[in-house]
């Protein structure tokens, strides 16, 4: 059982576009033995997904090409194999699961039909035999009451269930190798822990090998036997997982391991002035039904939340997707309407119109999650940052405005000379800095940070966390920090709220909640986030 299943030798991938050629993967070699889990670790753009997709030749040929390399699977070179031969391997001997379970399933077919299709294609199983096998697979991947789920369409399933269906499809033909491309990145932490546990048991049961692609070192430590660290298209270090974590050799590996968000949050201080206060805040979206569109029920996105936020302090809002944390933030900044009292630096803003809010807008700012979506691609950086100044301080001359823009760019650690460039010329971390500069240029007192680090690589995440903490200390800012990432919250927030389905599960100083969580749900969240452990408590199941 120790012979090599897959051997990638000196693989290179080049992309041609507009007369330019970029090398995405440069001479990568690695082996996967039978029954082994190998993790490809790296940050975005390191070429890890491209390498994995080359194994089954799933890249957009002919704009992609392989200048060199061979891929030996069971001794046969897939690189020179014909299309017909490749189709035999795809979905049969080697299968893949992808990051986004919503888009990898066809929304127009029931899940039974999608799984049965693969059985029919490769094994010719149809009819009752296929249905029995589909049920068996759904059972294996832990979908409850699979008989009732057979006719379900992807949109009727939750994210975790969809990923389970994807895994069922991948396992349908008992593959020898499963390639998992960031299979848990789009999922909540508790679901992520469940999926990881499932993959591990399935691997042991079937004795298959796995190639696991991820940027999350926590996952690697949990699941992989061996690790290949990739950066800039090259593998810089390979070795057994325990060895790499204990004794990293390459500078980049050490950098990656050291890049967990660190630092301590500000100290709680009740003598500081209150910036934002909300009592019994509610955001209910009506559900209308019937011919006359009568309101029959409400989606209670935020259901009775109290909070107090003081200058220089950070309130972390934690919860899984759909818990209402972003809605809470949008209601506090009056971008959507809500019920209940909201006061902001002494003004009762609950009933304010958009016009009435405008004079206060420069005191409250928002930084969004996606640094690619939150900057207009058609505006130069200087215009993006100056936009708020034009609204709130129209008396500034062109020169003064430019000086303020330059100063705020330097404040967030970017070269002021880059302000004439367009957003696409910057990396993700730099873009998030620009978004922060846009908020800071107005000298706000309150900043809502909506998952500002979730779309960033680990090492960049840590830098942004440091930057946010520095800015807070310098300007005595009040942060509302919304995140599902407990590690980042621990590094920034001194108070926190754990939300679930619009309600508060637990609220208090974050130190107490991290060290001694009271509620079952909080405990499950902590176990999943820090140890990748699935806790099967009723609070987590949906």
């Amino acid at each position, binding site marked *: 059982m120790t012979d090599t299943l897959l051997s990638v030798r000196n693989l290179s991938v080049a992309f041609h576009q507009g007369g330019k050629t970029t090398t995405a993967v440069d001479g990568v070699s690695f082996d996967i033995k039978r029954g082994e889990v190998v993790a490809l670790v790296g940050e975005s753009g390191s070429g890890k997904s491209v390498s994995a997709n080359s194994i089954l030749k799933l890249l957009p040929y002919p704009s992609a090409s392989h200048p060199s390399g061979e891929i030996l699977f069971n001794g046969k070179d897939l690189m020179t194999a014909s299309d017909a031969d490749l189709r035999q391997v795809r979905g049969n001997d080697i299968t893949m699961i992808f990051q986004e379970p919503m888009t990898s399933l066809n929304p127009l077919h029931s899940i039974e039909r999608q799984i049965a299709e693969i059985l029919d294609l490769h094994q010719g199983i149809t009819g009752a035999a296929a249905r029995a096998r589909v049920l068996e697979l759904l059972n294996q991947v832990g979908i409850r009451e699979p008989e009732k789920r057979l006719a379900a369409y992807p949109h009727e399933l939750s994210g975790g269930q969809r990923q389970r269906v994807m895994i069922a499809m991948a396992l349908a033909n008992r593959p020898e190798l499963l390639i998992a491309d960031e299979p848990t990145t789009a999922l909540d932490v508790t679901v992520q822990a469940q999926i990881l546990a499932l993959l591990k048991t399935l691997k042991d049961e079937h004795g298959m090998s796995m190639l696991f692609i991820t940027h999350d070192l926590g996952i690697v430590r949990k699941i992989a036997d061996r690790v290949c660290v990739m950066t800039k298209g090259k593998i810089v270090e390979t070795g057994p997982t325990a060895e790499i974590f204990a004794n990293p050799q390459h500078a980049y590996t050490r950098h990656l391991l050291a890049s967990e968000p660190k630092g301590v949050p500000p100290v709680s201080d009740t003598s500081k002035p209150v910036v934002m206060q909300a009592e019994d805040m509610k955001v209910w979206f009506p559900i209308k039904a019937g011919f006359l569109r009568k309101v029959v029920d409400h989606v209670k996105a935020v259901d009775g939340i109290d909070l107090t936020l003081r200058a220089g302090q950070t309130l972390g809002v934690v919860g899984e997707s759909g818990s209402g944390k972003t809605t809470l933030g949008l209601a506090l900044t009056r971008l959507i309407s809500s019920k209940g009292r909201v006061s902001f630096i002494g003004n009762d803003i609950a009933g304010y119109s958009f016009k009435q809010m405008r004079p206060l807008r420069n005191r409250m700012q*928002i930084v969004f*999650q996606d640094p690619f*979506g939150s900057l207009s691609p058609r505006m*130069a950086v200087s215009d993006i940052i100056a936009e708020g100044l034009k*609204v709130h301080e129209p008396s500034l001359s062109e020169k003064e405005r430019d000086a303020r823009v330059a100063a705020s760019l330097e404040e967030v650690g970017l070269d002021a000379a880059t302000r004439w460039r367009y957003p696409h*010329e910057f990396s993700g971390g730099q873009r998030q800095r620009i978004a922060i500069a846009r908020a800071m240029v107005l000298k706000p007192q309150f900043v809502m940070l909506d998952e500002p680090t979730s779309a960033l690589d680990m090492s960049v995440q840590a*830098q942004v966390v440091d930057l946010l903490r520095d800015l807070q200390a310098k300007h005595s800012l009040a942060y509302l920090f919304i995140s599902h990432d407990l590690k980042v919250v621990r590094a920034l927030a001194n108070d926190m709220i754990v939300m679930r389905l619009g309600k508060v599960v637990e609220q208090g100083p974050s130190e107490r909640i991290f060290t001694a969580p009271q509620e079952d749900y909080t405990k499950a969240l902590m176990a999943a986030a820090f140890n990748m452990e699935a806790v099967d408590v009723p609070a987590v199941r949906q």
Partner: protein
Amino acid sequence: MAADIVSTDPILATGRTGRLSPVNRRRWDNFKANRRGFWSFWIFLVLFGLSLCAEFIANDKPILVSYKGELLVPALVQYPEEKFLGDMGFLAITDYGSAEISDEIKANGWMIWPPIRYSYQTANSNIPHSAPTKPFWLMDKAERCSGYPQGENDPGCTLGNLNWLGTDDQARDVAARMIYGFRISVLFGLCLTIASAIVGVTAGAVQGYFGGWTDLLLQRFIEIWSSMPVLYILLIIAAILPPGFFILLGIMLLFSWVGFVGIVRAEFLRARNFEYVRAARALGVNNRTIMFRHLLPNAMVATLTFLPFILSGSITTLTSLDFLGFGMPPGSASLGELISQGKSNLQAPWLGLTAFVVMSVMLSLLIFIGEAARDAFDPRKTFR
């Protein structure tokens, strides 16, 4: 943190440059890569530019006259006959083609004629036989000059005075009418396209951005509006109002703006939830600025892609109205009227053929440009 700082590039650091934004740069390169569309674009621009100077190409007045030491520009300024003949002249507009005037001017100076000595309304009084007459190169020298008093030796029987593409049934020069007709078609198409783009984009933007009841009511209105029998309404209105360029433009505008609403509304609906739009709203930017600065550029891509096709559609509509006789006032140069003359004078194929060639060249050029523009704006399209 220092590792994340962008290194200073000396070229970029000097400040804002006049270059196109990189997105537009790529689009222009893509447009150029489509050779057919690129050449069509230039050919069309040259033809349109030339037709704008139609008064200097085909006119019954000279471009420049030197008379008794004075420089006159009859193509632009109207001079009465008195100017040249004193008390003898009684016409308010000088007929420079008449022997008296040209002899008088030649005696006291010189004049430069345009290559074609007819305007779109000038009737040729020296045609060899009854109108419509053939293009001159289909007749021998004696025949083509037979309409002139002195026959072959008449000084008036020159290249500029002959009908290059023949005449229509009212002895008007087809070449001149073609040039003016092309101009008015393209101008009408451009005006209609721009006006309907402005109305349609505004309506679509308001619907998409505000959504809700605004969207619902306007959508229902548009559904009713666009289900009207446009042609009959055009005929009825044309029967009541005097026909003319701007009346026609207004009537057609009433119905043509609807075409833009759909795409613009969809783009605004999609883009109004983008994070950078939300970010702008959080900055306190007002609705109008958000629509103009952040949302319109998104919708413009779809709109611009549409424009050449709408343009060719507008031209076809005007031509067909002219053909039916409900278009421009009688006497104006129009390709539709030329086609209808071709239909009623089958013995004079040069009428129908000229109109056909002009229409097909013009519309093909516009479609080729439209194709190239569409490909240039397509972000997924790659060119080798």
